[in-house]
């Protein structure tokens, strides 16, 4: 016979304002096996936990039900408290009467009645709980970082410094990411390359870091502490170990008509190319789609000029397999191509550019060698109009619903830098709200206005069209309540940022959950911001949401700390809520093994005592590898003889909850 204690939390007024907690405790006390029921202001507080511990000891409780917030919040807290009192932690059940009751209902009688039903279901379930002991698994002391931008580099460096081996997988031929494309950074105006490239070199040279550039993750299996990952190393057609990075091949390549991705297609590169001068590794790659040798079989100039003999046209993709204890997602972002915003003329007029394109036009290593020249005719623009919030903060099908966060500040930066180099340029910025929360951010924006005389117009642009060789920018000036038309030489669109396209497929591979915008979701928005809900998967940088460089770097460091914390452990406690087969019922049909996504079920031949003259018979029965099973329960439903059941969520437990609710 169980002795069950029920503890009803007020959560201050969060629960108590809508649910009559005394009535819930009172009702619970009348349920079968309940020997103790009480309520308290904050069950999760130290004194609340002590109350539970004392009650377990005093009343010799064999099961505990806490009526409180979501189990996703404090289940672990209360299990630990039970354990302190000498009770098996899995003899604790939570009735969620906050998120799923008090917060969504207004009527006290109704909410209280529902809370009582939820408590009753938990009481019914806990009576069928069994003490569970979690198994242990080894931790592979190696970390995988997916994405080699500033976020990935920073996480990798921090983890590597702590002494753990790290692999960076980057799909582009070099690490560096988007930050390598930036000119200066706000609000300090230090040069992006000057602060990034030393980090890239450090990552490339670190004894604990292995770079897999021009590579992609193909397949992930396993679980926290024990992931197995297949990585496709795409054929560069250049031998990394022989190449000296002299760049002669890239100069001699005759196919110099390929749009240069690094410069946002504003100039051309060869079919064999190094993305930019500071690339790490500084080894070229052949774009086989463009290469004459691959298209026609002729040419081969790069091979002829390479004194190191590094060119290898026969090189094939290579698949490597590696085990990891932790995986960090640092897949970064892209800027949308605002082609759907036809009224802003991005597709029609070459001098309407995105801010990332403008960044390249300002950059000394960019297509114009740092001279601001407009793409159409190479002339310096005298009137420039910046348009904010293009594709951000919208609700129509072409918009992103979120604020891209960095655009206000980089636009102020573009304005200041332009005015600094070309004081006779006139700059107008159409803005909706100027968002500058950050250290020295608003001061920076005010400098643009007060010191540099940038014309900020509150309003949005309705149409951009060409007339007499000028880009006519028609928009509203809301403070003047006027519609204005400015004649510009260039228009720069602060197009929305979006998660990198590869994030979605990686999310699926890793079962890391994503929000509706394809940003990875964190385990808890406030308290676990760098962890994915999937154990062992961590988040770094823009893949989790829009953020600037300092935020990215801090988050990258935080993710590294979490990884280090995991890799320092030798063993991990597993989830004891795993499947279990009753070998007396199992008929060895193999159905369960077929649906198991982890291959956790194997079959053994086992001898059983049977009545009759034979006395023993050998039968084939299922055995669950508890270290591999993740506890989804697919096998339990498939099993035709109900031999398979799930610990912690057994058939009887769930049925008892159903019965309690439907009473």
């Amino acid at each position, binding site marked *: 016979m169980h002795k069950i204690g029920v503890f009803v939390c007020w959560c201050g007024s969060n629960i108590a304002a809508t649910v009559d907690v005394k009535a819930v405790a009172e009702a619970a006390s009348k349920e079968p096996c309940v020997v103790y029921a009480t309520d308290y202001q904050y069950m999760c507080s130290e004194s609340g936990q002590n109350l539970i511990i004392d009650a377990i000891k005093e009343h010799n409780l064999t099961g505990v039900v806490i009526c409180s917030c979501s189990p996703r919040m404090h289940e672990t807290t209360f299990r630990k408290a039970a354990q302190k009192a000498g009770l098996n932690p899995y003899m604790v059940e939570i009735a969620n009467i906050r998120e799923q009751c008090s917060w969504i209902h207004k009527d006290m009688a109704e909410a209280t009645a529902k809370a009582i039903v939820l408590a009753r279901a938990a009481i019914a379930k806990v009576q069928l709980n069994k003490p569970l002991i979690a198994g242990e698994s080894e931790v592979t002391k190696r970390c995988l970082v997916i994405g080699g931008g500033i976020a990935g580099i920073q996480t990798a460096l921090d983890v590597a410094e702590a002494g753990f081996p790290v692999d960076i997988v980057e799909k582009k031929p070099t690490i560096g990411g988007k930050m390598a494309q930036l000119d200066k950074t706000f609000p300090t105006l230090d040069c992006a390359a000057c602060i990034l490239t030393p980090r890239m070199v450090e990552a490339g040279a670190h004894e604990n870091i292995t770079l897999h550039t021009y590579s992609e993750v193909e397949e992930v299996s396993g679980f926290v502490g024990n992931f197995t990952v297949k990585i496709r190393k795409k054929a560069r057609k250049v031998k990394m170990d022989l190449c000296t990075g002299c760049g002669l091949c890239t100069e001699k390549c005759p196919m110099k008509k390929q749009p240069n991705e690094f410069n946002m297609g504003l100039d051309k590169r060869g079919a064999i190319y190094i993305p930019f001068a500071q690339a790490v590794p500084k080894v070229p790659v052949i774009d086989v789609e463009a290469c004459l040798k691959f298209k026609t079989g002729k040419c081969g100039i790069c091979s002829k000029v390479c004194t190191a003999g590094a060119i290898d046209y026969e090189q094939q993709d290579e698949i490597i397999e590696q085990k990891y204890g932790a995986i960090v997602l640092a897949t970064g972002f892209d800027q949308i191509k605002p082609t*759907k*915003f*036809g*009224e802003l*003329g991005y*597709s*029609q007029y070459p001098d309407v550019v995105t801010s990332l394109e403008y960044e390249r036009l300002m950059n000394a290593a960019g297509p114009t060698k740092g001279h601001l020249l407009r793409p159409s005719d190479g002339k310096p623009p005298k009137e420039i109009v910046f348009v904010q919030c293009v594709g951000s903060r919208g609700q129509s*099908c072409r918009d992103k619903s979120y604020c891209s966060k960095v655009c206000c500040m980089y636009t102020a930066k573009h304005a200041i830098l332009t005015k600094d180099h070309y004081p006779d340029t006139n700059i107008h910025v159409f803005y909706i709200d100027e968002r500058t929360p950050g250290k020295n951010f608003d001061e920076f924006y005010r400098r643009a206005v007060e010191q540099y005389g940038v014309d900020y117009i509150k309003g949005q642009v309705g*149409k951009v*069209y*060409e*007339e*007499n060789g000028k880009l006519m920018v028609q928009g509203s000036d809301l403070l003047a309540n006027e519609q204005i038309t400015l004649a510009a030489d260039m228009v720069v669109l602060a197009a929305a940022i979006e998660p990198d396209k590869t994030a979605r497929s990686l999310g699926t591979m890793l079962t890391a959950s994503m929000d509706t915008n394809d940003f990875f979701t964190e385990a808890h928005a406030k308290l676990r911001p760098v962890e994915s809900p999937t154990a062992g998967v961590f988040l770094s940088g823009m893949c989790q949401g829009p953020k600037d460089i300092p935020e990215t770097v801090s988050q990258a460091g935080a993710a590294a700390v979490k990884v280090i914390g995991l890799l320092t452990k030798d063993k991990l406690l597993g989830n004891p809520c795993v499947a279990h087969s009753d070998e007396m019922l199992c008929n060895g049909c193999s159905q369960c093994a077929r649906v198991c996504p982890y291959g956790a079920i194997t079959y053994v031949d086992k001898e059983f005592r049977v009545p009759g003259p034979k006395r023993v018979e050998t039968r084939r029965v299922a055995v669950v590898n508890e270290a591999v099973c993740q506890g989804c329960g697919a096998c339990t439903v498939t099993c035709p003889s109900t031999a398979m059941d799930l610990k912690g969520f057994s058939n009887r437990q769930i049925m008892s909850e159903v019965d309690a609710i439907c009473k």
Partner: protein
Amino acid sequence: MVYSYYPGCTLKTKAKDLDMYARKSAEALGITLEEIPEWQCCGGVYPQAQDEIATKLSSVRTLNSAKEAGNDLVTVCSACHHVLKRVNDDMANNEYIRTRANNYMELEEPYAGETKVLHYLELLRDVVGFDELKKKVVNPLKGKKIAAYYGCLLLRPSGVMGLDDPEDPSIMEDFIKALGATPVVYPFRNECCGGYVTLQDQSLAQKKSNKVLGSAEAQGAEMVITACPLCMYNLKNNGTEHDLPVVYFTEILAEALGVK
């Protein structure tokens, strides 16, 4: 290929050319246009208010006739097309309007937006195909620089009209190319000519029409085509500062097909 055809009031009076050339060209392309019997005027503008039911009924009747005939419904006039497509969308997706309109109509089977409404241009693009059309051209309009004027009603709101990209359309330009002429793209091709406001404030209509024609002229257009009799009127009569010829798109189609 048989289609129900809704000409609309203006095509029977001031815009007979638009209608006549549409029919002749359709015949030349092997398309049968069956005029809806006893059709009524669509009202010219789409009544936007949720509680405007009676004003939508004439369109519902037309749509239901096409449904009963088992045909897709083709229109030529941009305004009729706009009204019919949007009312059809209401009947399919707006339960409030659907219920009330059907209460008035007392049909045997309630109408719920089953008819597919096509603009004549869509017929050319999606059914005939511009490549096929090109093959049927006997008098290619070589060397002619033609500017397509879309106006507002053909394209917006794009969610319902679904004719083309509302900001950077290409259907009429592709049509012009198929006839052998050179399309002229100009920024004001999807901006309003002034519409019905000409009755209330002619100066506004003049301003808008001149802007459109000026924009087309600046890009080197020698001729403007339109699908709307009201646009035609505004561009011709209110576009006072410019002397560009404006014709219906069906007229150059008939010319190219040699049935003018």
